[in-house]
């Protein structure tokens, strides 16, 4: 029996770094079924809910009052799938690392790449890029499908500089063009929102190392904290609410900045993006510090 490699000669320079890590992490991500299940859910939920909600809203147009007409937001209808996708990308982001802890394969990973920040960086790049591409494709697909559904109901585009007043007075369902002010940004930031959320779940995964714990905390941040905050009087709740991840998401996706039914005034879209990016950076950094300090 011979086990010697005939073809294996070590590269003269370099080390097991993050380009090799990215290749490896991509292989890992694409070779498990949970990834592809998530992809299907995100695309189907995104496009399907866009068609469904746009269809329902289109039917209601003629019966809507002035205020409802003013808040009629075809872009937001087309991105309804985000409410489901945000949990799916969270699970995907967390699983990338917690599945390694639950199976014990993290020890194999770390004994192949001794610099742990390299492992974290490679995983973050792969998760971030894959989810960004996936959710951007879904967001734009959902947008166009939603507008097609509205158009099929007799909807028309308004002049791109139309005021909210002309939307309220429009006899036909307003359809949004991607070139309308704010539309491209809203659809694009929808994908960015999902990507940043997945990175937050990813960082939580590194910190907690347990799938159930990480997903629970992630869902808690998205769903439970908003409920708890509503218990407080508006003077306390309002300034905090706009900084909750779910409301940052609303701000990023909203075409116009206006008061929503339940929250104080939202941040501007780019400010909201910045705040969410800071959250993601902090959580991933904490996860990375714990990864470096703790025994595997």
């Amino acid at each position, binding site marked *: 029996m011979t086990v010697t490699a005939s073809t294996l000669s070590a590269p003269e320079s370099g080390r*097991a770094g993050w380009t090799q*890590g990215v290749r490896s992490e991509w292989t890992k991500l694409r*070779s498990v079924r*949970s990834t592809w299940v998530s992809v299907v859910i995100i695309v189907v939920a995104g496009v399907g809910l866009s068609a469904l909600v746009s269809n329902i809203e289109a039917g209601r147009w003629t019966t809507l009052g002035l205020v409802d007409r003013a808040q009629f937001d075809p872009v937001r209808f087309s991105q309804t799938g985000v409410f489901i996708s945000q949990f799916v990308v969270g699970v995907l982001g967390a699983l990338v690392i917690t599945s390694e802890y639950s199976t*014990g*394969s993290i*020890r194999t*990973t770390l004994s192949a790449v001794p610099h742990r920040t390299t492992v974290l960086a490679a995983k973050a790049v792969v998760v971030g890029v894959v989810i960004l591409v996936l959710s951007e494709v879904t967001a734009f697909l959902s947008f166009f499908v939603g507008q097609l559904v509205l158009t099929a109901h007799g909807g028309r585009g308004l002049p791109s500089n139309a005021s909210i007043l002309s939307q309220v007075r429009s006899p036909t369902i307003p359809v949004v063009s991607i070139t309308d002010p704010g539309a491209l940004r809203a659809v694009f930031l929808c994908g960015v929102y999902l990507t940043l959320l997945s990175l937050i779940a990813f960082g939580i995964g590194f910190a907690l190392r347990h799938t159930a714990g990480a997903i629970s905390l992630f869902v808690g941040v998205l769903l439970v904290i908003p409920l708890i905050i509503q218990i407080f009087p508006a003077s306390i709740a309002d300034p905090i609410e706009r900084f909750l991840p779910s409301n940052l998401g609303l701000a990023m996706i909203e075409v116009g900045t206006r008061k929503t039914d339940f929250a104080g005034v939202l941040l501007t879209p780019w400010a909201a993006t910045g705040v969410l990016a800071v959250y993601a950076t902090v959580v991933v950094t904490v996860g990375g510090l714990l990864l470096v300090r703790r*025994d595997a």
Partner: protein
Amino acid sequence: MIRAAGLSKSYGSTRAVDDLSFEVRPGVVTGFLGPNGSGKSTTMRLILGLDRPDAGSVTLDGRRFHDLRWPLREVGALLEAKALHPGRSAYNHLLSLAQTNAIPRSRVDQVLDIVGLTEVAGRKAGKYSLGMSQRLGIASALLGDPRVLLFDEPINGLDPEGILWVRTMLKSLAGEGRTVFVSSHLMSEMALTATDLVVIGRGRLIADTSVDDFISSHTEATVLVRSPDPDRLAAVLESSGALVVRHDDASLSVQKLTPDRIGDAAFSAGIPLHELSPQQASLEEVFMDLTSDAVDFHGSTGTEPVT
């Protein structure tokens, strides 16, 4: 060459490894023996930089693990056979590992061939039997064609054919001049496979020596003697300086006299002998004796209370 110097590691109040120093030389199989829970796996993790020692250091061919540029090409390890994603195919598991160290795909095919998993490489690793998982673990250790190999309990779950295969594999790896460090709690297995031994109990070093020296230096040669007149024979032998233990079935265990001297003494005293057989202590017995006070947990049947 693996060199551990003063390694210590505690988890909470439990001292898993306590001031452990040893050397593992290339070219032979070195057995790493200890009862379950004696710190073998912890030591393996410390060697691979997975856990940080509280004190001491360990080097591989003179370098610390964290300083290796292409770790898989320097040290290959099988820690836990089942520590892989159950939904990923064996091929993709090996490929993802190979990619971290810029090891070409062709080497993945090679190691699959070496361990005999080529046919089932596309199957999910979670569907593998423990024996197949062990082979996959060994394949991953061999990926980078490393000079140093660590195997934690590699024959667990293998059938006799698999055990023989691993034994042959370990010896041939060592024969190629590699450093091969194999942990086991099965002494009899190490007696067959290993040339050198590192023995620990409760995280402390008990012996760092060769298998042969280990047995001979820790056993007193004993001869089992049967005679129709055991009392007189015992008296005769004791007067010649022997240490005699009388058993219930009238046989005697004699130490400090060779079989020749015992036979001669019996002959000259006119005592008939029905049996005169040298007893070879097995590595198992030596090990049990040595580590009995270093075992954390005892079964309640068959063993005497430890003092």
